[in-house]
């Protein structure tokens, strides 16, 4: 009976069914935890992108400000998030600021992360060629030249450029507000 044709097919089908069921349950149970891990990872990657020298980050204000720490746990900088209204929606920026108050790096959320600015125009403000202009600047310099600062806006993308610059500026102001380390 064990070797009958019917049982050969039936045993295969049964095994598949049991396996599929067991796996769907395991998947359902672990899914929330895995999604959470993914979110944590995405945040960590964004932080590391603006503060590459950091070994770890301490969340000082949930979702808003992190202290960048080196391998020994000493603070080497701060990371802040801000979002000013751009052309088609908010423009989230992440700013890494060193202990000297100068910008280490700026990152803008990408289109896949919900950024709605215009491709080819506004989106140019998310590219390294524009963002590298922020590096090393201090708080007063971080505005568009036409607003009194040192950042050149991108031709044809003034609104988005301004949103980025204003976002960075706000981040730096908040940075100056909190007590020195």
């Amino acid at each position, binding site marked *: 009976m064990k070797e009958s044709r019917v049982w050969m097919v039936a045993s295969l089908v049964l095994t598949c069914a049991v*396996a599929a069921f067991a796996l769907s349950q395991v998947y359902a149970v672990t899914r929330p*935890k*895995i999604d959470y891990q993914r979110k944590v990872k995405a945040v960590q990657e964004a932080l590391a992108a603006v503060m590459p020298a950091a070994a770890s980050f301490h969340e000082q204000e949930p979702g808003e400000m992190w202290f960048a720490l080196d391998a020994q746990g000493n603070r080497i900088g701060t990371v802040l998030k801000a979002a000013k209204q751009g052309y088609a929606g908010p423009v989230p920026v992440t700013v890494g600021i060193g202990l000297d108050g100068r910008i280490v790096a700026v990152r803008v959320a990408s289109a896949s992360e919900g950024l709605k600015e215009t491709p080819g125009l506004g989106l140019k403000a998310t590219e390294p060629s524009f963002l590298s202009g922020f590096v090393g600047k201090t708080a007063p310099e971080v505005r568009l030249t036409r607003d009194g600062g040192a950042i050149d806006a991108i031709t044809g993308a003034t609104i988005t450029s301004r949103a980025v610059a204003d976002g960075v500026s706000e981040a730096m102001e908040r940075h100056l507000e909190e007590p020195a380390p």
Partner: protein
Amino acid sequence: MSQPESRIRILTSGIIKENPTLVLMIGLCPTLATTMSARDGLGMAAAAGFVLIGSNLVVSAARRLVPDAVRIPIFIIIISTFVTIIDYVMQAYQPSLYKVLGVFVPLIVVNCIILGRAEAFAYRRGVLDSLLDAVGKTLGFALVLFVMGALRELIGSGTFFGRPVLPSTYRAAPMLFMLFPPGAFFLIGILKALVNKSGIGK
């Protein structure tokens, strides 16, 4: 079969005399790829062990129901189920280990040790014997992965389980060769030579 092996024998043979990696020469890929540190090696052994023990148990328990002609596909389904379970559980609760092991977690499904033991042992023996066999082979596999991982970590970065062990002058310029693929091949060659010399498994 003439006389029943002692249960102890089944358990212990997997550790030295029939060590999967250094005597039976199976399961080589993860042994070389996931042993850049002691912790990674043990993590890999634990994951593979979970699958081996699980599949041996299920195959043995169901051996009277599984038709001979379709046994291999059924073994594969059972094994891949356990592999998928450990895959998702590790992703959820040990993401850093999962990141290190990478594609080798799903590759456990083609780890020759597991399909080999299901076919050669679990399909023909009782549940307790199959469990002992799986545990023994897992311990043997873990032993080799641990030794490889510990040595590669020690020589290649001067640490042990992440803790610095060798003096900082060494750690400033360690023998990085050990952490790279050539080092892994070299080390397992030495280990296998030692096994040959000692006559284990002959």
